């Protein structure tokens, strides 16, 4: 069941839209903001609210890599693996992250603190290698600097 807050926010988003289904991705983002991810049940509820079928909404949800259809940790690390970062040191960053957190790409730490995901270019090429944690970008990273950065995310 969607919470009252989720429902109200989605309805507010949908009200001015020409078609309800055009706010599909916004509605998914709203749910994700509240829950960290979009579970099957919430997906079905949002679909019903927008007059879509679950298959139609899931088609939207699974198209965007920023919509999580599986639970994620408290913080999501999006590690850029596109060309600039790759040249400037993506691999050492990845190795450090994997060894420090004890997880591989696509996985979540046992304590639920971090989920590590790859991403395409963050638009931060001038500060490559870069990554993004939650809503913050971090550039010019080295494995050493990384340790500090992670400390800020409890």
């Amino acid at each position, binding site marked *: 069941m969607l919470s009252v807050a989720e429902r109200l926010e989605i309805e507010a988003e949908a009200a001015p839209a020409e078609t309800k289904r055009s706010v599909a991705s916004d509605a998914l983002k709203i749910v994700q903001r509240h829950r960290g991810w979009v579970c099957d049940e919430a997906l079905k509820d949002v679909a019903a609210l927008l007059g879509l079928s679950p298959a139609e909404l*899931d088609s939207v949800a699974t198209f965007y890599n920023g919509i999580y259809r599986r639970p994620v940790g408290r913080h999501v690390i999006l590690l850029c693996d596109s060309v600039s970062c790759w040249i400037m040191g993506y691999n050492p960053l990845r190795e450090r992250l994997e060894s420090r957190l004890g997880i591989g790409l696509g996985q979540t730490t046992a304590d639920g603190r971090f989920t590590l995901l790859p991403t395409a270019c963050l638009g931060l090429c001038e500060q490559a290698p870069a990554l993004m944690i939650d809503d913050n970008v971090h550039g010019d990273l080295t494995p050493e600097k990384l340790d500090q950065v992670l400390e800020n995310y409890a």
Partner: protein
Amino acid sequence: MTTLHVDGKTYTADTAGRNLLEVCLSLGLNVPYFCWHPAFRSVGACRQCAVKVFKDEKDVRGRLEMACLIPVTDGMRVAIDDPEAVAFRAKVIEWLMVNHPHDCPVCDEGGECHLQDMTVMTGHVYRAYRFSKRTHRDQDLGPFVNMEMNRCIQCYRCVRFYRDYAGGRDFDVHGWHDHVTFGRHEDGILESPFSGNLVEVCPTGVFTDKSLKHHYTRKWDLQTAPSVCPHCGLGCNTFPGERYGTLRRVMPRYNGEVNGYFLCDRGRYGYEFVNSRNRIRRPLQRDHTGPVEVSKEEALALAGTVLQSRKVIGIGSPRASLEANFALRALVGPDRFYHGVTDKELRLVRTLSALLKRGQARTPSLREVESCDAILILGEDVTNTAPLLELALRQAVLQKPKADALKLGIYEWLDECLREAMQDQRGPMIVATPDRTALDSLASRTVRAAPADLARLGFAVAHALDPTAPPVPSLTPDTLALAEGIAAALRTGRRPLVVSGYGCGSEAVAEAAANVAWALCRTGSTASLCFTVPECNSMGTAMLPGESLDAAVAEISNGTADALIVLENDLYRRAESGSVETLLGARQVIVLDHLAHVTASRATLVLPAATIAEGSGTFINNEGRAQRSFQVFVPPDDIQASWRWLAELMPHSTRPWKGLDDVLAALADAVPAFKEIPDIAPSADFRLTGQKVPRQSSRYSGRTAMTADLSVQEPKPPVDLDAPFAFSMEGSRAHPPSSLIPRFWAPQWNSVQAVNKYQFKTGGALRDGDPGRRLIEPPEGEPTPYSVSIPAAFVARPYRCLVLPAWHIFGSDELSLHSPGIAARAPGPYVALNPVDLGRLGLAEGQAVTLSVGVASRVCSVIVAPDLPVGVARTPAGLPGLPALALPAWGGIAAVGGHSPPASQHAAGVPPVAGNEQDAHTATENTNATSGSPGERGGAP
């Protein structure tokens, strides 16, 4: 006509409305493709159809273009065999197949796989990819369609068919990048009644026929012949395929005018009755000691004695061929032949056919339905009464927005652009029915009313269109306004269409529908009138003179007759059991049929009759199109076509019939309406380049071994006296006339896509015309007078309900229910009621009740149908094991106490339990074309 130069040769072709790929294919040139489909055209998703296009003679470099995305211009220079284009195509298929498992030997698609064909055609024979492949978890999609997603090449055809073309909403594309999958949101039965078409639409082995899996056979090992679907009145064309004496599957047989490339799931999966363990295989005699098998000779002798010593009447069947019905009529005498349906049904079907013959509105083929642009559906839930008509109507509602989009200069074959331009726009379609239908979500307006009120609405629309049409007395202002609105909507169409039929069981509804179509015609429109009919030969048999079952009952009860021959008919499904008892009380009862049913269990003599796959015969569909269905295989044991049994019972001196052609000649002679019937397909002595047409492919394997357990000598193939087909591999491999095509195959084209080679234009008619012949054309001259019998408005009665038949695509057809997959989707016995009636009758949802109509009654559970008009109930028609009710009729509903589990609701058309509350008294309006819940097709919420 446009001139174009391809690979240095000059061609001329009619290229209007067609892209380069279509034109090349029609010219017989092989351009590989995946995502283009003749029914839903181009999106340019696969990049497989790349060719070189040159600016002019001087241009030697040219540029790569996707053939499916460019129009043909006069003087165009194209190279399919340009080295760069060839290399490009080979690379494309290599990319598409990077993750493909290369598991052809264990893939059901193997041997008829478009991906195999295209791989060979592009010359991609060596794969460079050496890494691990991505794999998917497959979904269980229910009994009809099997999924093996790893074989996907991301052409998007499946979703374009299922979602865009067939309107299914429980199937979509999911994921992104390398992880794209196609399917449902979660495991579960595919809701669309057209789901089986994924099997051919998908060019790979992702979606395959699950029923075939249980008795798998490769295409080249199947014996096939052109046949007709026996499961509803539309007469879709089919290819049943047989191996080792059992039917393995049914595939659509392309007919540009009828079913096109598709079949509904009832038609595709309903075939398993042919293999049923309940088949009658040998003649059975029954006396006071019980049934005993007798030889064919004994059976004929027994029947002969009955015919000589008794006053015999014959009861025909709307699911038997014309030949069988006619043979029975000839055997017992024309005045002793009765139709195997109640008076109610016979009158209704005769009314339908009379209206089509009488008026100036033409009865459209399904193809023509697709091109209509303003639609009134009166009283018909087409999904459940004539399934493929729903698919055609889904295309028809797009005609108007498509016409607008074309004005923007979009090519008509650019599917994605057209859909982008059309968005959610739909042409006018008014769905006026007693309860919800699957087409409601596309309707510009929905109206819910009892049949009498639907008829009155129809008559009022006709009057609004043409003031000389009879006015409807005492109409409410609301209905009047509604009628005027509908009339205005229909007037906007260039090709308006009125759809009605047997669904409501009301002649008045059909007459009203005809009046609307005629009023449109009289006021200058070219309107069509499409009626559904109950069974595969309802239209044909109704054209045979003769009275109904009710009259036959009278004959037996008053003693004018004391013996009965029942042709392919379970009378208990037709009439209430009292009358059937009277009939079967005759001294001798001879039953010819496929399956042991209650009627057969009461017969004194049972003769095993061929199914549609085991005998040849003619059927007339709802359009009035006579179509020949040919025997696919020789049935085991003593099974033979009913007409042959009956012919063998005719006295030796008069027995004139050796083969089907003799029956047809006699039929044409005896019944003027059937004068043309012999000519609808070549006769048995037709030869193609001097030979018969082989039912088996040139690769048919194992035939010297397949009966080796019985005898090491290879038996001589049986001789077919009825058709120019051979039960063997030997024969002519030339293209036969379209009515004799046993399978679609062409060199390099092993999949169904070979059909392109049988058409002059892809998606058009088969080369020498689509099979079948229309027997009904509108009369010339003065317009016919309107029907004037306008019923009084519906008035609900205290303590009773008007009980209407609820038809179910899975459940109402007798034969298809023998397929386990179809039986699993049939609803349980229920009665659907409006909540007001529920309160009025003191009933609760899910409660077990006794529904009684006349002397018959059935126990069923209550379903809530919020849209159903107050005072009206619906209960499924044709479910097995339930006493037949002569619907529509007034009935009583009383609690039997206690609560029973609700009826199964996953069948299409079961009214969903939850829904918007609408006042069922008044005609309601719904202009929200996009609404509709995921379960809109009637699935349980």
